[in-house]
């Protein structure tokens, strides 16, 4: 019975999808290391599916493999979108394992940096081949005009991917959303705190509207 019902549900989900022509969109969460990408991905996944995606850490390069959570259905104001969330490793042009040796053994630091470089390479590859839209996460307390951010936004634009900029960590004292808006005026910037859960309504509204 459970099986039959499950089957029926999944068929009706499949047909719903067919009729609404809603293939799940692969939304890549990109941004520099430590911006709060995984914290955001976990919050979205928890809010809409109940479980998390990956581990968060104050040490950069915590995420070293892109992780995917499939079929997350987000609904706001009658608009709904089904997305596969892809949490990616923070993009950088350099990785020095010695930055981690204060936090861990040398062997682990070397392994962490090696995994980080593989993960960043993979994330760059995906950006060229495998995502339908991008959430670009920035730490509002940091200067947004860095070479990595400008290059990445340029790469995203050159592929004509829809992009939303998330100004994260607005709970911090030195956060400035305006600095981010001024840096990338051609894109919509949404302020939030992924950690505190601030302004998530606007976050979901924008996701549903923008990627729906």
């Amino acid at each position, binding site marked *: 019975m459970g099986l039959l019902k499950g089957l029926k549900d999944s068929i009706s989900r499949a047909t719903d999808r067919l009729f609404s022509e809603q293939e799940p969109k692969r939304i890549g969460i990109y941004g520099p290391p430590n911006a709060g990408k995984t914290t955001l991905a976990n919050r979205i996944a928890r809010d809409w599916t109940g479980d998390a995606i990956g581990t968060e850490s104050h040490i950069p390069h915590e995420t070293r493999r892109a992780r995917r959570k499939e079929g997350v259905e987000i609904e706001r104001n009658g608009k709904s979108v089904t997305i596969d969330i892809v949490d990616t490793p923070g*993009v*950088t*042009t*350099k*990785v*020095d*394992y010695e930055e981690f040796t204060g936090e861990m053994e040398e062997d682990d630091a*070397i392994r962490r*940096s*090696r995994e980080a*470089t*593989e993960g*960043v*390479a993979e994330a*760059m*590859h995906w*950006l*060229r081949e495998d995502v339908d839209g991008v959430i670009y996460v920035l730490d509002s307390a940091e200067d947004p*005009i860095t*070479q990595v951010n*400008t*290059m990445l*936004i*340029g*790469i995203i*634009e*050159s*592929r*004509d991917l829809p992009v939303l900029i998330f100004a994260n960590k607005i709970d911090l004292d030195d956060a400035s959303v305006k600095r981010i808006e001024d840096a*990338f*005026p*051609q894109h919509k910037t949404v302020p939030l705190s992924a950690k505190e859960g601030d302004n998530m309504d606007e976050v979901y509204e924008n996701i549903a509207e923008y990627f729906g």
Partner: protein
Amino acid sequence: MPKATNADDGDGPESPDGVQIDLISGERMEGMASMEKIRMILDGVHDGNIVILEEGLSPDEESRLIEVTMAEISPDEFNGIEIETYPKSSTGNSSILGRIMGNNESTKKLTVIGPANQIETLHKDETLISALVSRN
């Protein structure tokens, strides 16, 4: 760097006090395939050189440059690159129309690339890129 151990004279990349700068013209880059450009840049950077591209890279090439750089990072040998462009990659200007018209103006930006472990800061403002190269 304490002292060059191999007595190779001439101004090779290993010369102890000098920093080699490769200034590569747009013309030179024009006939090259993306991967050739990236190879040339990274070969220069691996040798400790600062590579300056008169006309920069396309966004696609930049993304490949990051990808290949990541693949070549190796503990104690190569930490990756510093890169700066001038003027700032003209965000917003890369319109579909511009690209259809074959207007690749947006890729013509002076680009400075160097080895991350030797360049302490690549500082940039509206009119200047300055690289602080460590000599140790």
